[in-house]
């Protein structure tokens, strides 16, 4: 026989035990959860680290392969200086061409309703993403070469594009245009339609609305696209090689120069490579700053 207080005491003890057991289970479950989560993240980080090292080591070894003195000495070499100058000039021109011809098209594609043949236009704009640069170079040669579809008429007028500096610009513009147009189109499409309509009702015609509202609003996206196109133009190798050739001072851009001088003058090749990498990182840094500044 248990009296009432005994009963309640045992009930309390039982409750306490149940509570403790529950607590223990909860703790165990938490431990298991965190354990499995941490093991997942550990494994993923370990595998990811391999990739990061794989990307970082070549860059590091590039910088370690040449001393600052030899780097500066190589910068003075003709082949390096000419390649640098040519690359800056041609890629700048290519960028200009891409922006002038790409911006109107990007704007139309962003604001116009779907029209017949739009899919074909889209596919054409993806072309430089999916064709290997060597194929692009060959195609450019078939179009603008001396015997080419357009080139034979140009030749009659005394214009010979292949193996000239102009050919370098064409190859770079061909490769870079898709990056710019895609990015610019997204930027224009993101401009609020209502703002455009209000601008029109306020007395600003389509031209004024474009230059005063749409262009400034889309500018960050245009700049990002231009930067990507420029980077692509600067790094262009295959199409330039096939369409423009490899002549120092005329068509030998930095990537071509690296390829050419690598065996006889490794320092010069390394110097050009380091310059290209620094420019690339500089561009990334500028873009991230720009994005912070604009957002």
């Amino acid at each position, binding site marked *: 026989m248990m009296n009432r207080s005994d009963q309640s005491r045992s009930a309390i003890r039982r409750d306490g035990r149940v509570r403790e057991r529950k607590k223990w289970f909860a703790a165990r479950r938490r431990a298991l959860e965190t354990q499995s989560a941490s093991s997942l993240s550990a494994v993923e980080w370990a595998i990811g680290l391999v990739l990061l090292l794989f990307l970082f080591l070549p860059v590091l070894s590039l910088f370690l392969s040449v001393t600052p003195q030899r780097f500066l000495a190589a910068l003075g070499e003709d082949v390096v200086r000419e390649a640098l100058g040519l690359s800056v000039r041609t890629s700048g021109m290519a960028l200009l061409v891409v922006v002038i011809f790409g911006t109107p098209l990007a704007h139309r594609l962003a604001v116009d309703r779907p029209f017949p043949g739009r899919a074909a236009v889209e596919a054409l704009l993806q072309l430089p993403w999916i064709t290997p640069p060597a194929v692009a170079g060959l195609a450019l040669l078939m179009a603008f070469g001396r015997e080419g579809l357009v080139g034979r008429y140009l030749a009659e007028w005394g214009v010979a594009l292949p193996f000239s500096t102009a050919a370098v610009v064409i190859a770079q513009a061909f490769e870079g245009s898709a990056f710019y147009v895609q990015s610019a189109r997204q930027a224009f499409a993101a401009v609020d339609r209502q703002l455009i309509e209000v601008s029109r009702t306020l*007395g600003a015609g389509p031209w004024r609305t474009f230059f005063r509202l749409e262009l400034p609003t889309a500018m960050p996206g245009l700049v990002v696209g231009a930067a990507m196109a420029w980077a692509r133009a600067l790094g262009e190798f295959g199409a330039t090689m096939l369409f423009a050739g490899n002549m120092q001072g005329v068509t030998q851009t930095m990537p071509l120069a690296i390829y050419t001088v690598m065996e006889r003058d490794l320092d010069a090749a390394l110097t050009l490579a380091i310059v290209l990498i620094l420019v690339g990182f500089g561009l990334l840094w500028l873009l991230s700053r720009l994005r912070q500044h604009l957002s």
Partner: protein
Amino acid sequence: MRDILAFDIQVPLSPFSLVVKGEVDPGVTAILGPSGSGKTTLLRCLAGLTRPAAGWIRFRGRNLFSSTDGVFVPPERRNVGYVPQQYALFPRLTVFGNVEYGLKARRVPARQRHEHVRDMLKRMGIEHLASRMPGSLSGGEAQRVALARAMVLNPDYILLDEPLAALDPQTRHHIREFLRSVLKEASCPVLCVTHDLEDVRHLADRVMVLREGRIVFEGRVEEWVREGPPPEDGEREAADLENKGAFDNETEIES
């Protein structure tokens, strides 16, 4: 010549077409009707943002649109005051820049322009906001800026698309009173799309009821209260119209 905006237009929509004919006298005309009845499309046609398939739109006898004569005056040459539902302030311009935008487009000289903007900001009671960016404004403030931006151009007619819908009830009450005084001053035709019977009661002189692309009632507010169209089964607007009886209560229908 009468100071009116008149229209007779057809716009194919789905599942029905907008086929409307009417005149808008000076003063405020509320456009009522269920969602999708064509209210906003009518407003857009009058603004010049949507081109009707057929018909005509005239202001003081001038053709703004005429399908038979092939006339379509684009929005920038209509001198219309248009305030869309979400105000659509230019996010990269200050309040001053927003109000100045239309005057700049009309090439008003800088001195005059600044004077006009300052006067308008003062009239709207927002001169202290001149250098603020739209992102930092409250709903009521943004509404005043949008109104100032449209009114500073001295428009021939004003189109408001649910001007108070985006505001919380307290602000709405305030802005409604304010809107009334401003629109009274403007003394030009004003069309105001709304779902809110309070808007009709406080702002409007006349009511136009749209249903499935047709105007089913057009008349003075008092007439509408007395003899507006009877509610139809299964129609959202039935609720609006039934509530007419309780006109003095705070009645408000969600869109």
